[in-house]
């Protein structure tokens, strides 16, 4: 049994089904990757796991318990989403954004200082810009802030939706490297990507097609599998 076990998950928007039975298992401490083309259902999967989208069928077990409850309750239990498109609070400062990341653990000032120190050590740029409004940061800095804000909640399972979207290859590499460090510090990570370069650091990889997981395996093996790459990743 993994930290997260998803079986036969179905969800959609209104009456339109998008996920037609998603199954996957993520080991505690692993760095997992979910790949797939645009519109495959990756974001929908993460929203359902974060409690932001109702699930119509299927089972999700987190740490051996059925996963239910409000988005806030899930953050408190350690499941934290870094949403697609960053979604920082534009008219608040970097530091205020990070403070809100710790919303579910507010009042714990020791943990706040500890997490803030960790975020600033992983992303020194955020420390330099702590009083700057988030809306005035570059795309890459906003992505770092979105991940940093997620870390402020002391996550056990960090769900990162397309961190590389719109970033230069160099920045993408930096962000992937930071996620690797976060994973090495003990946070289980599920990264959603269209960028197959992420496979280099993935222990486990899943390929999603039209609302189903069609391939699952080791990240390194999938990187070498030309057939998989051509068929499922379009690269």
């Amino acid at each position, binding site marked *: 049994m993994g930290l997260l076990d998803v079986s036969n998950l179905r969800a959609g928007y209104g009456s339109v089904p998008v996920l037609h039975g998603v199954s996957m298992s993520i080991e505690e401490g692993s760095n997992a990757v979910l790949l797939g083309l645009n519109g495959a259902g990756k974001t929908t999967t993460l929203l359902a796991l*974060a409690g*932001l989208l109702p699930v119509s069928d299927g089972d999700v077990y987190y740490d051996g318990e059925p996963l239910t409850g*409000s*988005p*806030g309750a899930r*953050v*408190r239990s350690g499941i*934290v*989403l*870094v*949403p697609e498109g960053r*979604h*920082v*609070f*534009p*008219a*608040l*400062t970097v530091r*205020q954004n990070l*403070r*809100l*990341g710790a*919303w*579910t653990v*507010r009042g714990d000032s020791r943990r706040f200082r500890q997490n803030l120190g960790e975020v600033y050590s992983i992303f020194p740029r955020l420390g330099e810009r702590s009083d700057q409004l988030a809306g005035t940061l570059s795309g890459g800095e906003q992505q770092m802030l979105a991940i940093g*804000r997620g870390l402020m*909640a002391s996550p056990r399972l960090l769900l990162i939706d397309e961190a590389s979207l719109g970033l230069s290859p160099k920045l993408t590499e930096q962000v992937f490297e930071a996620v690797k460090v976060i994973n090495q510090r003990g946070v289980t990570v599920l990264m959603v990507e269209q960028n197959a370069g992420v496979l280099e650091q993935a222990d486990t990889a899943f390929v999603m097609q039209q609302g189903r997981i069609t391939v699952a395996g080791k990240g390194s093996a999938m990187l070498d599998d030309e057939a998989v790459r051509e068929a499922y990743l379009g690269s």
Partner: protein
Amino acid sequence: MGAFVALGLFQGAVYGLLAVGIVMVYKAKRAFNFAQGEFGGIAAFCAYLLIVALGLPYWVGAVGGLAAAVAMGLLVERAIVRPLESSSRTILLVALVGVALFAIAVTVLLAEPVPRVLPPLVEGGGVDILGAGIQPQQLILLAVLAVLAGALAWFFRTDLGLAVLASSQDTLAARVVGISPEAVSRLVWGMAALVGGVAGLLYAPVGIFTPGFMTATMLVPAFAAAVLGGMTSVPGAFIGGISIGIVQNAGIYLLGQQWQVPGASQLSVFALLMLVLLIRPQGLLGKEA
């Protein structure tokens, strides 16, 4: 002249108290709350019912009036604001004007449009300030405004206050960090209604009051005060309210009494507003957090 400045200061405190509630809702919802005056209206009428008509102690009437205002705030949030969450802010504005008109119509129906007198928080003779007779109630009003403005300015720096700003900037992001935007919305409307209730409860005894007394004479200068202060600044609303009160009354004295200019009161308010916005289009203290 001195007496007019003193009168203006205390009248400005009422504008400020309303403006603080208007700013609170604007910061949280980007909505112009035209119902803000009627939170004060319902508080005054309920307090009157309990204190004067039923003969209960003052504090029962005060608590009852404020509770009624908060209940109205929560009702407005649930029945009007929530269903219009994704509508344009103009539609919400019109709906809130509707709420104010509806509230006035209901008070007219239930209470008849006759002038009433609500007892003040503190009885006693007036004091002389710069030649103007100022009631103890007006002194309290100014003090309460200062305390409330300070408390609300501080509130927006707390975690909860940041959560209010966050929900207004990005609802999805607010949910992602674990904030419930629905709970935030209830909090904001409850607090705004409470501040409005305090304004009505304290202002009604300064003269006589009738249905719609807050909306009819206080709301427009209060909006001018909020805009003058920058629309997003609580201290700005405080300063804006007081400046408008003083300039308005100085205008009544100089333009109206000395030079016989018609409409001196409104003229001076809008002259001040235009002047400030020409020099500082963002208002005196406009700033988000």
